[in-house]
């Protein structure tokens, strides 16, 4: 019976380095998904607060679909669906080709669309919290609509949307655990492997939970710092 610390140590016998690699994959997946999700979410929110009914309809369909599907199912749909779709396109040119889609990219896309559909709601409610006068003020000092958005609306929008977005970031961090189901070596998958090899399942999954908790705590420190920074800019004005 090996001691717990030997099992968690770094090196050929311990699983510390494998778990660390899992943390790296989880964190990098979450960090790569975040900008993608924020960008799509912002664009969808723009569509949903448009004066044009067709635009609103298109945005609402997007949110309805990706908020209604289980994240795991979205992941499988993207993973297998994209694989089959790309394979069929490629087979038009090369009939014998076998396409393997990268599970990291599939995870990024799937988590990105889920994140963006929630983020669009956060952005939308933030848009609604900004009075019309802010736009009108921007136009009346001669800013173009794009400049008004960038210089007047966005800074306020970020401040209002920040609590909602930081919630979504914590949810995203937890949702990354699902990519272990499509074979990406994240924290959960690495600890499953370790658990199977060493038969210390409780210990390794407990450690996995603690790592997620630690990531959440680190994130909340980071979020606090961002909130203070944004709040300071508010005070200067």
């Amino acid at each position, binding site marked *: 019976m090996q001691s717990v610390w030997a099992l968690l140590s770094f090196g050929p016998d311990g699983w510390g380095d494998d778990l660390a690699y899992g943390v790296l994959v989880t964190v990098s997946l979450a960090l790569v998904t975040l900008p993608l999700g924020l960008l799509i979410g912002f664009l969808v929110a723009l569509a949903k607060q448009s004066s044009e009914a067709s635009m609103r309809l*298109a945005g609402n369909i997007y949110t*309805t679909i990706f908020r*209604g599907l289980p994240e795991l199912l979205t992941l499988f749909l993207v993973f297998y669906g994209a694989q089959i779709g790309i394979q069929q396109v490629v087979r038009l040119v090369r009939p014998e080709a076998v396409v393997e889609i990268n599970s990291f990219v599939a995870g990024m896309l799937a988590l990105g669309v889920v994140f963006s559909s929630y983020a669009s709601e956060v952005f939308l409610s933030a848009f609604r919290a900004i009075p019309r006068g802010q736009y009108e003020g921007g136009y009346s000092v001669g800013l173009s609509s794009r400049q008004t958005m960038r210089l007047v609306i966005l800074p306020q929008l970020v401040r209002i949307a920040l609590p909602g977005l930081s919630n979504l970031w914590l949810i995203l961090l*937890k949702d990354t655990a699902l990519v272990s189901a499509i074979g990406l070596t994240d924290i959960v998958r690495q600890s499953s492997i370790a658990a199977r090899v060493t038969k210390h399942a*409780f210990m390794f999954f407990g450690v996995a939970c603690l790592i997620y*908790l630690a990531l959440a705590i680190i994130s909340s420190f980071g979020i606090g710092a961002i909130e203070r920074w944004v709040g300071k800019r508010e005070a200067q004005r």
Partner: protein
Amino acid sequence: MSASSETAVKVQRPPAPPRGWSRERIMGWAFVGLWAALGISLVTYLFSAWNPELFAKYAPSYLSGLRVTLTLVAVSIVLGAILSLPICYARMSKNRVLNAVSYGYVYFFRGTPLLAQTFLIYYGFGSFRPQLEAVGLWSFFREAWYCAVFAFALNTAAYQAEILRGAIESVGKGQWEAASALGLSKLQTLYKIVLPQALIVALRPYGNEIILMIKGSAIVAIITVYDLMGETRRAFSRTFDFQTYLWAALLYLSLVEALRHLVDWIERRITRHLHR
């Protein structure tokens, strides 16, 4: 006098905003067209891939999977609701120990992924097999289904405790004071005055929690519970037919949408006295 009426006539109103095909409008219709095309291609794909044999073979298992999903969610939501009461009480109590313990519980279950919690219980408790056998609980933790219910109930209890706490705290302090001025006991105040107001606030979060559970319950497929997702995975692994996933998506989507509209309807119904 005539001068003023003259200016009133002569005043130039701004022209009505043109309702032509602006760039935004064209783009909006393009997106709607894209969705429509996707929808139509989905329907035609499902039609063209229609396979009566496949349907006859897997439709019953999909239905049983749906039943498993609904049972799992219902049981864990109810158990979680019961479990959330003491947690919520502890979370709101002034006792420091109770408060710290319940805060830790809620923080743990809200800060870690449901998947990791489920693995911790299903695979992790296997490490304590001799001890569990000694207490007679091993037959419980051996079954994936019971482990899933256990994990989900613990998880949703943490979320529901927070929902309940938020709702109770949303009721103003004056309500408590007024009730105690009328001579109502604490418990009476809670049941007759605070909870009826709090549950209106809590309805939407509760609905969201049920939806999150339905979506989250898909992960039990990974620990070999054959819910809707598990049946889908089994059907896909046997047929490699992508429509298996599309059918599951349609089922989940209609389930969640139906629930969302139901919550909307209930909310409209129970807040009728608030609208003027």
